[in-house]
């Protein structure tokens, strides 16, 4: 009874955050709504007996990435952003199409996934298992992703510095 209620509560919070992220006009409110979703998701991971994933979700997503989002939004936002929402019809159509595609893709994956084995794997997902997965089985893609992030970082610095030289 209690686990089901908790699951329901956390799911509602996560969905509420996601909905607010889409509907609120103030970007700060949107970012905070996303934090709410992240924390609720961490709670759901805890329910799946994956405490390490839950802690990492809070530390990395809620604690680091979203703080950065909030930081940048607070710094660069201007007062005119409180104005009415621009309804650009063609862009809106494309966005709807992409969203529908993405939703279809995710729904497909979710429906095909063998959830019984995933739940069994989740219960043993301690730090050792995760480390073995990352640093032996999937070492190459993992290192590739870190190189990709480095490239993106260097690219951002180059783009940001371009204006200064001229």
């Amino acid at each position: 009874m209690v686990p089901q209620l908790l699951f329901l509560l956390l799911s509602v919070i996560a969905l509420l955050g996601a909905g607010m992220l889409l509907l609120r006009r103030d970007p700060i409110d949107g970012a905070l709504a996303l934090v709410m979703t992240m924390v609720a998701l961490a709670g759901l991971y805890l329910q799946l007996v994956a405490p390490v994933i839950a802690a990492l979700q809070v530390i990395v997503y809620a604690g680091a990435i979203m703080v950065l989002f909030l930081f940048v939004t607070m710094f660069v936002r201007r007062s005119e952003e409180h104005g009415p929402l621009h309804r650009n019809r063609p862009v809106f159509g494309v966005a709807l199409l992409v969203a529908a595609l993405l939703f279809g893709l995710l729904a497909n994956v979710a429906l095909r996934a063998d959830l019984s084995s995933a739940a069994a794997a989740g219960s043993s997902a301690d730090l050792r298992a995760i480390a073995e997965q990352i640093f032996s089985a999937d070492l190459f893609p993992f290192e590739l992703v870190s190189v990709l992030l480095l490239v993106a970082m260097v690219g951002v610095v180059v783009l940001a510095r371009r204006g200064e030289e001229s």
Partner: protein
Amino acid sequence: MTLSLFVIALVKVLVTVIAVLTLAALLTWAERKQSAVMQDRIGANRAKIFGVRIIGLWHIIADAVKMMTKEDFVPPYSNRFLHTLAPFLAFFLSLVAFAAIPMGDSIQIAGHTVDMRLAPINIGFLFIFAMTSISVYAVVLGAWSSRNRYATLGGMRAAGQMISYELAMGLSVLGLVMLYGTLDLLQMARAQGGLLWGFLPAWGIFYQPLGFILLLTAIIAETKRAPFDIPEAESEIIGYYLEYSGMKFGMFFMAEFVTTIVAAGLLTTLYFGGFQVPYLLADGFHLPFGLFLGVPSALIPWLQFAAFWFKVVFFCWLLLTIRWTLPRFRYDQLMNLGWKILLPLALVNLLATGAGILLLS
């Protein structure tokens, strides 16, 4: 859940919360009195009840009454919801982090094995880390929702500092995690029970002296206390809680002291044997040179509990002393220390620990 388990859980919650909050209240007094002694002043001694002053201890109650009866001012044009949420968030997150710290080894009560921490969290260190990383929001939201530029700038400074030192804080402990092969704080504390070379207690600090110094530095920055008190700097450059008054300000204030206690508890558990009493094993004191002193086993949990709180109070004292000894860092010094000194040193420590484990095993 049976009734006895419920009662045990209730007692644990009450004991922990009362102990932490009492110590936090005492720290507000200790801070004023210790700074006074160090600066050749007398310090808080005016409050008296029926002419009794008891070295200024009434000031704790006087402060509490003052804060609760002051006007709770919310600035106009501020975001009222976030403005109210921020101090609650700060206080809650600092207090809940203590739940993962073991105050003693597991004991048997009425046929149940009772964990001497609030929550049996097996990722202990990561949990505390997660709570500190979330507590940045309390600072940022409190600053931003006030709609005051000085407060917002203070909040930005604070957030920058907390994010920078979080990384060094996490990395400095990883050496210990590699050594003990667990994130569980109870397991870590248990692993520090034996002796090193026959005479030293096998505490973390003797294995990871550099890690301890790095964590101590990073954790002072996380608690936002001098020499890392740029976020606050109450009288000079104005901090993130500028627009708070009454008990909301008090909650930020208390959150800082509770964080200090959590920091002391974490330092104790990771590097100073946690609840371990030096030379005390299951049957008594095994001193060097073959001396032995028997202790009844019923007394041992009490000794451990006392040892844990003694060490916590010691670290609280140490943190207060550092605060009143070192001057404040400039912002560029702060960033240099975090990113160019602490972070590389933590990585070197990690590498050396890995090499050591590989060579010795």
